[in-house]
């Protein structure tokens, strides 16, 4: 989902992919650990509590990995 975007809010990713935030959080954490994603937190005027919104984006390494994966899928599918 992130490949065509500059970045996306964590909550929007969960809503768009219809995933629970807990599951997504685990996946994002794993992908950050291997260097495919980068996250940043900002205070959100939309929240009344002190929690921040998390923005997620692909790293250059992540983009290369995804592009390779997509190319492999297309080759396998005969596209």
């Amino acid at each position, binding site marked *: 989902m992130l490949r*065509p*975007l*500059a970045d996306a*809010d964590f909550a929007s990713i969960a809503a*768009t992919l219809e995933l629970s935030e807990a599951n997504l959080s685990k996946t994002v954490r794993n992908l950050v650990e291997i260097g495919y994603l980068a996250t940043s937190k900002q205070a959100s005027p*939309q929240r009344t509590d002190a929690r921040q919104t998390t923005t997620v984006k692909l790293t250059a390494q992540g983009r290369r990995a995804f592009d390779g994966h997509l190319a492999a899928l297309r080759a*396998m*599918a005969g596209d």
Partner: protein
Amino acid sequence: MESHLEHRSDPASAREALEAIGTDRGRIGERVTAETWWTAPAQGLGVALVIAAPAAGLLWAWLPFVLSIGIFVGVEVFFRKRSGLGITRPAGPRGLWLLVALFLIIFFSFVISMKLALFGLTGWVVALAVAAGVITAVIVVAYDRAYAAEVRRAG
């Protein structure tokens, strides 16, 4: 192990995975087009203000420019807040060409507007500004639809 590898190299599984990616991307497109109802007229208004600026005279021409910048920044900020998406480029060639067309229309409209204002034809400047604003809104609608279609297969 072998059957797992065979499953992974199965063209049908690859097509299924590609379809799932396309479906997820399609939802991005839905989030974009869900905002078109207000982004298109707002950006049309922003462009109309820029084109109409020469009619305001040297003393007040800055005001429509400032208002226009406020509108474009506002659209960017509110789109981000509502959709949660950061989009900085078109998803494909159709979107890119629509952006090029929009830029050319705005550029030449502004040049014509300045010439009309020099001759004191304020009414024509306003008419041109309204036309440019409407065309901009239409192009923004077309752009969002192109984005929604092209993002499914974007790299």
